[in-house]
């Protein structure tokens, strides 16, 4: 009778069974997240003894090498500086809008550093720092936030999709990119990012299901920062964790302390590795916190206590990492100076760029709607051109 259990379900055919058996655990044990979120640094930045890192059989993660950790720290410092510079520019009215990832930089940096150059990343509006860390010029990323109509950088060049605003839609694109690569025999891994609120959208479900059914190497990386604008996680889901959603797709889920740079990098790396090796998707939920309002247009005092924000300051990813690396002897004063100098340079370039208005040709709004503008658009373009000409004369 046992062979009739779960009739018709294909768990036998999936990589989950192989993978879990290579860890010596059951598929269910493997798919469900470890009993605690994975954490390697305590809130003060001390390394947690291995036994207390939240791991359980099949859920152990090796600590990344020192130079990878130092590179991550550098990206953290630059990322924080970019966040804070942009925040200031918005306040000065020199930038239209900026959804800051202040407090979430460990997730941002981990996302970028876990990927190889042939891999793809699908970020949201909040993932500017991840995009920069992967190599896009900060000025290019800021193009759309300055009020231009396009995404600024070339998605194909960087293998980073345009920041996505319609929530969760991009996860399906990530699956498609991975599937195309798989069909061509390439081992591209795709990192697909979204927030906690976004997991409620239907596209989240469809993306995870498609990824699992087509066995494509997509790492779904959810930054659970506690809020979707004003709505706390408790009003978003009743699940034991967002990572638990994985099992409903026949996928492994894991939860990580998203303010612990070491754990984020370790878990993301393993996820990317497994995804690539076995051509399978995984779900990683990072517990983090949005330290600032949703955007400058938001007033977070309406829906949360400042005490809550204060509490999370104690777990600042940057400070934890600095303490850890300093005590580990990886970060010294010289390196610190070099890194903060670099961060200041990036910030200065941003400030400088924002002193001039971006150059925009109004007529270009007609040029990229189709590969070749239709007769109708050429007519409309001519009309606007005529208006512009007359207004210059007038």
């Amino acid at each position, binding site marked *: 009778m046992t062979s009739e259990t779960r009739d018709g379900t294909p768990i036998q055919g999936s990589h989950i069974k192989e993978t879990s058996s290579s860890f010596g655990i059951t598929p269910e044990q493997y798919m469900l997240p470890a009993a605690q979120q994975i954490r390697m640094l305590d809130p003060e930045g001390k390394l947690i003894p291995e036994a207390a890192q939240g791991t359980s059989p099949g859920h152990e993660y090796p600590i990344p090498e020192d130079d990878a950790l130092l590179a991550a720290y550098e990206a953290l410092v630059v990322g924080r500086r970019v966040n804070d510079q942009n925040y200031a520019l918005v306040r000065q009215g020199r930038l239209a809008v900026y959804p800051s990832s202040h407090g979430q930089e460990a997730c941002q940096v981990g996302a970028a550093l876990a990927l190889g150059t042939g891999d793809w990343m699908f970020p949201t509006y909040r993932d500017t720092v991840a995009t920069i860390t992967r190599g896009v010029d900060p000025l290019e990323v800021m193009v759309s936030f300055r009020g231009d109509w396009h995404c600024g950088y070339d998605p194909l060049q960087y293998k980073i999709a345009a920041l996505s605003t319609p929530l969760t839609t991009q996860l399906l694109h990530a699956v498609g990119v991975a599937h195309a690569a798989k069909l061509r025999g390439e081992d591209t891994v795709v990192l697909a990012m979204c927030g906690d609120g976004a997991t409620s959208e239907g596209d989240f479900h469809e993306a995870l299901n498609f990824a699992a059914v087509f066995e494509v190497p997509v790492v779904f990386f959810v930054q659970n920062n506690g809020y979707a604008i*004003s709505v706390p996680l408790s009003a978003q889901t009743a699940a034991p964790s967002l990572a638990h959603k994985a099992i409903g797709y026949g996928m492994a889920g894991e939860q990580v302390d998203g303010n612990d740079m070491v754990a984020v990098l370790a878990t993301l790396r393993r996820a990317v590795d497994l995804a690539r090796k076995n051509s399978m998707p995984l779900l990683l939920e990072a517990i983090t916190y949005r330290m600032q309002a949703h955007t400058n247009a938001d007033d977070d005092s309406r829906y949360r206590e400042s005490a809550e924000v204060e509490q999370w300051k104690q777990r600042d990813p940057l400070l934890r990492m600095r303490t850890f690396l300093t005590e580990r002897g990886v970060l010294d004063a010289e390196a610190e100076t070099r890194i903060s100098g670099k961060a200041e340079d990036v910030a200065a370039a941003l400030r400088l760029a924002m002193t001039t208005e971006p150059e925009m040709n109004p007529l270009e709004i007609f040029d990229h709607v189709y590969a070749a503008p239709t007769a109708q658009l050429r007519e409309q373009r001519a009309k606007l051109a005529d208006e512009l000409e007359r207004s210059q004369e007038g």
Partner: protein
Amino acid sequence: MANTTTATTTAPAVTTKPTTFAAALNTAMSDAMEGDRSVCVFGEDVGTLGGVFRITDGLTQRFGADRCFDTPLAESGIAGMATGMAINGMRPVIEMQFDAFAYPALEQIFSHIAKTANRSRGRVRLPLVIRIPYGGGVGGVEHHCDSSEAYYAHTPGLKIYTPATVSDAYLMLREAIDSPDPVIFFEPKKLYWTKEAVDLSALRTQYEDAAQDESAPSAGVGAEGRAVVVREGTDVSLISYGPSVSTALKAAEAAAEDGISAEVLDLRSIVPFDDAALEATVTKTGRAVVIAEAQGFVSVAAEIVARIQERSFHSLSSPVKRVTGFDIPYPSPKLEEHHLPSVDRILDALDELQWED
């Protein structure tokens, strides 16, 4: 149904203080909730936060989290749950955060909300309201400024209202909530913070008295639509709705300086459509310009042009012109001024109306 044939209230304007469009909407919802326990409000961030535009501000505090509440972040879910609640005796008023973020709900809206009354042979009606902030002019980034009314207007079974004044914001939302049919209620974002001297409590009395008076002729938008002439004129008709009415009025003023007397018609409801008002103004002036923010192709503006020529062809002295957004994705904040119907562009259209004939 309230008698609101004229857009301006007849209440004494003596001590009315400036009221925003947003406050009028907010008061309409709270008055409706006050009067009817089946009215409830939900959507993304509408509870504690009061909505990203603060239109639902204070409703949770006043009526409790059972009657105004946040949902998980899923628009199809919101529309689908509203459908079920309306099936089971409620009058849900739901908010879509921005125009383009209503698209995940389109299947629920097209295949169920629009069709339920019909497929149940009138036994199940869905008295629900979907509020959609729409249009541009507020410096919004991509996906935040679509004018999506055409999608809904093309779908039989939905009513489409869009107010252009503070008093209409109040009266039409009350009417939408009281409607036995599902209403897509389009709120022009750029008007949210405009103010008019409107006495909301006078409007409340006016609306509720009329609603109680069974013998009063139903002068609400009802089954006929009810456009209003917001400026009288004799030479040309400017036809518009929602965010474009104020632009049309400004253009009419500018045209007056050139000696052209433009009449301005505010459609108010796109479905039902007020053909009588449209025919009346076009018959009177013989010329028309239709103004709307949405891209023009296969749009509400196209429908208006088609109706004018079908019904008033022989009154026309020149072709009807459209001044609409271009057929492109909504452009960036820095360029939207070039995209949106402007006074200048309306004046250009007037110039082309073959006045020499």
